Each structure stands twice: as structure tokens, then as C-alpha cells.
């Protein structure tokens, strides 16, 4: 096992982790504001990928334009879901929202199956994204670098937004204390919409990355990344945005290094390892790595 080999594994872990982190942020953002575990979040990943496919193949949009389209579509779908499915049952017990999100997920997946069929299809990206780039001892593809860079840009933008803009502060205030925020004149409905819009746009961006990297998309593609990102959000501490980022990278690295550094006989135990790690982390730190101890606001 050479140093270059280990370095390569670490790079792979960071790439995978970037995508997990982007999806996980949405889980945490939405949870922070409305205390909702939104299981339909993984399907926004799917929608992002298909939006990309549609804008490139049907409308021949240039790649950067298509990226914007994906972000907008993701945000729009997120807000739409919030308006139709979650707003009518606000104030219901936490588990009700969770079930509702499952129902939304099933609706999105099956609508997808009925319209574009369950058969996986290929996903075309511009050739320059496939080019090799040399980074010291590492040789990686442009798309991989683009994923990491885009993820960092999006996450920095989010951090700046939350920290310094008025809307961002209002959002933090809402997450801190819903009722006090309302008394302070913050429009709660708008804050919730905003959380869904931002979280979903990031998930859609992850979907476009997922599709570009693996070149294969299907209506059910968001299921596993969504689930893993949920795990990442919990590892980081649900509700904490920085926790979600950290959790995403921890999970991505752990997954790749587990398979990469152990003998091949253990490769099949990848998921066993991921979830066992999760349980261990939770036992040691019951609120996740960066989560704060808060009572469930049922």
C-alpha cells in the first residue's frame, strides 16, 4: 500500500463526501427550522439529475446555464412540496411529518417510474469534464475537481448567507426559537419556504454531480444517497449545518477508506460498517458530532 494509493483513497472519500455533505445540509436546514425529517429529500437529488438531463438534451443549454437551471428547479420543487404536503400538517407530531415525507417520496418516485420508466439511463456531460488533471502525485478527472470546488463554493455561500444577511439571521433566529422569532415579527412561513428552497437547491446540485460522476440516472437513484446523507446529518448532529458538512465528509471518507484499506473480503460489509460506525458515534455522542442537546419539539 503506497502513499499515492492512500492519497487516492482520501481524494475519493472527499469527492463522495462532498456530495453527501450537500444533501445532508438540506436535511439539517429543514430539520433546524421545522423539526421535520424530510425523507423526500433524496428524491430532490433525482429531480436535480433529471432536470440537468432535460436541459442539456431537450433544450441544448450550455453546461453552466444548466447548472443554474438545476438549482432553480430544485428550489422550486422544494418549495412546492413544502406548500402542498407539509404546510397543511404543520404543528402535527414530528412522526406525522416524517410519514408525510415518505409518502411524498413514494409519489415522486412512482411518478418518475410512470413517466420516464424505471430503466436506468445514461447521463451525458461535456467532454472537458472528463479530462484528467494532475495534482501532485494525484491524477483526477475534471468532474471530480469540479464537484469538490462547486460543493465548497455552495457551502461557503450558504455560510455567508446565514451569517451575514438579514434573511439568514432571521433563519437562525427561527431555528433557535420558533415562537420568539414569530413574536419578533419574522415571517415564519417565508423562513420555512426559504429553508426548503436552499436545502433542495443544494440537493439538486448534488444530483447533478451524482449524475455527472456516475453517468447513470433512474427515478430511484436518490434513495441510497438520500439515506446515506441522512446518516451523515445525524452523525454531524441533525439541525447543525456545519455538523451536516462535517458528517458528509466523515461518512464519505469512512466508506471509501473502509473498502480501500481493508482486504477485499471485507468489501461486502461496506454498509454494515457504515451503519455500525453510525451507531457507535451516536452512543458516544448521542447528539452527533456538532449537535446540541435539545428536547424534541414534538
Amino acid at each position, binding site marked *: 500500500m503506497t502513499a499515492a494509493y492512500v492519497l487516492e483513497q482520501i481524494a475519493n472519500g472527499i469527492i463522495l463526501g462532498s456530495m453527501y455533505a450537500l444533501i445532508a445540509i438540506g436535511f439539517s436546514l429543514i430539520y433546524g427550522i421545522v423539526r421535520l*425529517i424530510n425523507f423526500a429529500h433524496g428524491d430532490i437529488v433525482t429531480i436535480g439529475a433529471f432536470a440537468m438531463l432535460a436541459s442539456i438534451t431537450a433544450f441544448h443549454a450550455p453546461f453552466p446555464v444548466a447548472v443554474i437551471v438545476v438549482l432553480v428547479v430544485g428550489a422550486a420543487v422544494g418549495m412546492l412540496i413544502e406548500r402542498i404536503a407539509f404546510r397543511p*400538517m404543520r404543528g402535527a*407530531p414530528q412522526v406525522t411529518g416524517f410519514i*408525510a415525507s415518505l409518502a411524498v417520496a413514494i*409519489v415522486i418516485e412512482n411518478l418518475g*417510474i410512470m413517466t420516464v420508466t424505471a430503466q436506468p439511463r445514461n447521463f451525458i456531460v461535456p467532454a472537458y469534464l472528463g479530462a484528467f488533471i494532475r495534482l501532485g502525485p494525484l491524477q483526477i478527472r475534471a468532474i471530480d475537481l469540479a464537484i469538490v470546488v462547486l460543493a465548497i463554493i455552495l457551502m461557503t455561500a450558504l455560510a455567508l448567507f446565514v451569517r451575514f444577511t438579514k434573511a439568514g439571521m432571521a433563519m437562525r433566529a427561527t431555528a433557535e426559537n420558533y415562537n420568539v422569532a414569530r413574536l419578533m415579527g419574522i415571517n415564519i412561513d417565508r423562513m420555512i419556504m426559504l429553508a426548503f428552497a436552499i436545502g433542495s437547491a443544494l440537493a439538486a446540485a448534488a444530483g447533478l454531480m451524482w449524475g455527472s460522476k456516475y453517468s447513470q440516472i433512474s427515478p430511484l437513484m436518490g434513495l441510497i444517497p438520500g439515506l446515506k446523507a441522512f446518516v451523515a446529518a445525524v452523525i454531524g448532529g441533525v439541525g447543525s449545518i456545519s455538523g451536516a458538512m462535517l458528517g458528509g465528509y466523515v461518512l464519505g471518507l469512512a466508506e471509501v477508506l473502509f473498502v480501500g484499506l481493508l482486504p477485499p473480503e471485507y468489501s461486502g460489509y461496506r454498509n454494515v460498517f457504515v451503519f455500525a460506525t*453510525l451507531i457507535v458515534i451516536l*452512543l458516544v455522542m448521542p447528539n452527533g458530532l456538532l449537535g446540541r442537546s435539545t428536547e424534541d419539539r414534538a
Partner: protein
Amino acid sequence: MERRSNLVAVFGAALAGAVLVYGASSVLNPYLLSIIAFLGINVILAVSLNITNGFTGLFSLGHPAFMTIGGYVTAIMTILPARKAHLLPDLPAFLARMQWPFLPALIAGGLVATLAAIIVGFPVLRLRGHYLAVATLGLIFIIQGLATNLDGYTRGALGLNGLPELTNLWWVYGWMLLTLYVCWTVKHSSLGRTMMAIRENELAAACLGVKITRTRILSFALGAFFAGVAGGLWAHLVTLITPTSFTFLLAFQLVVIVVLGGSGSITGATLVAAALTIATEALHPVEEAVGLYGLSQTLLAIAVLLVLIYRPKGLFGMAEPDLLAWIRKLPGRQPTHSGSKRHREV
């Protein structure tokens, strides 16, 4: 409430249910029988999950993990020893030689699942809410991964096929009655009130001397036992069990049933489990007729959303509506012995 007359009514309902099972077994075709059997298994699963999720308020998604454990254990006990040696070379000799009748095999499946729940429960049940949910979700993947990779004990991805078709309506009905009876008794006992006290306010319950950990583990283990048995029944109905027979999607379905019925309501869980099973099956021919595969799930999911919007506490909340009384009040019906209980069951 006149307890005695209720007791008679419940007993009568069980008996009438048995008559119906007898009738169904001799009249209906294998397809309808298997649907009714799945319906019963779903009732066992939903009602037993209700102990954990409804009564104690632990948001567990772990049922499929316990079903997998129970299903494999039951199957290993019922396979002919001669076949076992060939299928599962790594099995310890004493297990390889054994062949048990169905009932002890099912109980063994349930007990091993219970044991797993106790072992896992000690650490995991300290977690709360969604943290517990994701930990139990993880349990599904862990058990699934082990079942896939421990070839010598489980035959890996191929699973165990050609199991004897032991599960019939009688087995399902019997276990369903037992599940309902146990859940009902627990709910209306001091144990049940302890569980609900934990659900409502853990701190207050602890202050009143409730043993939190013990009660949580008890409810988790009790749910796991019936899940294990249901896994065994399922495996010997389909005559096949694989690592992916019971996935997290099933866990979601079960949680949906519990929440729709009203967390803690046995009646609700039973009725919704039955209704969803029938609806899913009834929509299949519709789906095939219009050629839109995926339609049935979409319609059911939309129905779930509508129920949640208009009845956010589920259909029955915590309550057990007195269906017997309701039926007695129906105009033009004489008070009958059987009541509707059976309908939920068959």
C-alpha cells in the same frame, strides 16, 4: 362497561373468526388465501410495532431486521438435515442435525429475534427520536449485510429457497390472535401505563419510580419477538427467504400503518394494515389494465397524505373505538356475538 359481556363478545369474535378461516380455507383459491395470510402477517407486524412505537413512543424502524433474523432461524430449523448439510456447510453440527416442527421453530425464531433486540437495545435505546430511528434503520442494513456475506450460514444472496410451505391461514390466524391478545393485555395493564407514561413524559415517569431502561427494552423485545415470528411465517408462506426479503421500505410501510391507525391504537393498526393490504392488491389489476406500473403506490401515497392532512393524529388517535357497541347500535341489527373484531382479523 360490562366486562363479562365484552369478554364473551371477544371470545365469540375469535370463534367466529375461526369459522371464517375454516370457510375461507376450503372455498377460496390459493391466491386469495395467500393475500389473506399476508394481511394477517401485516396485522401481526403492525400491532407488534405499535408496542414499541405507539405505546412506549420509541421511534423504531427495526422490525425488518428482526423479521430477517426470525425468518432465517425458523427456516434453518425446518429444512431437512440432509439438505442443510449441502446448503449451509458452516452451520454448527448440532444445528445441522436438527429438524423441528413448525411451532417450536417459529418460537425459536421469535426468541432469537428477542435476544438480538435485548442485546442491541441496551446501547441503542438510550437514543431519542430520530436518532433512534436512524440507529434501528442501520440495524436493518447491518443484518442484511451479514445475511448476504455469511454464506456458510445463510447461503448468501441466493437465500434459502424451497422451504416447506408450512404457513397456512390457521397459523397466521392463531399468531394474530395471540399478538392482539398480548398487545391488548399489555396496553390495559400497569406495564402498558408505564410505557405510555414514558412516552408522555420520561422525566416525570422516572421521578415516579418507573424503570425507564427496563421498560423500553421490554417493549422493544416484545415487538421483536412477534416480528421474528412474522418473519418465520412469511418465509414459510413464500417458501423463500433472502437477505433482501425485508428491507427498510417495509419498515416505512409499517410505520405508516401505525401512524395512520393512530399511534397506540391496536384497532387502528389492525384496520389500516388490513385496508392497505387489500387496497394494494386490488389496485394491481387496475394498474395492469391501464399499463401504468407504479400507479398503485402513487395512489396509496396520496391517500396517506390526505389522511395525515385531515386526521393528523391518525384515524383513531390513541383510542380503541368500541366497535362492538358501534355494531350493536346499527339499526336493524340484533346484537351479535361476533362483532367486527373478526373482520379486522380475517
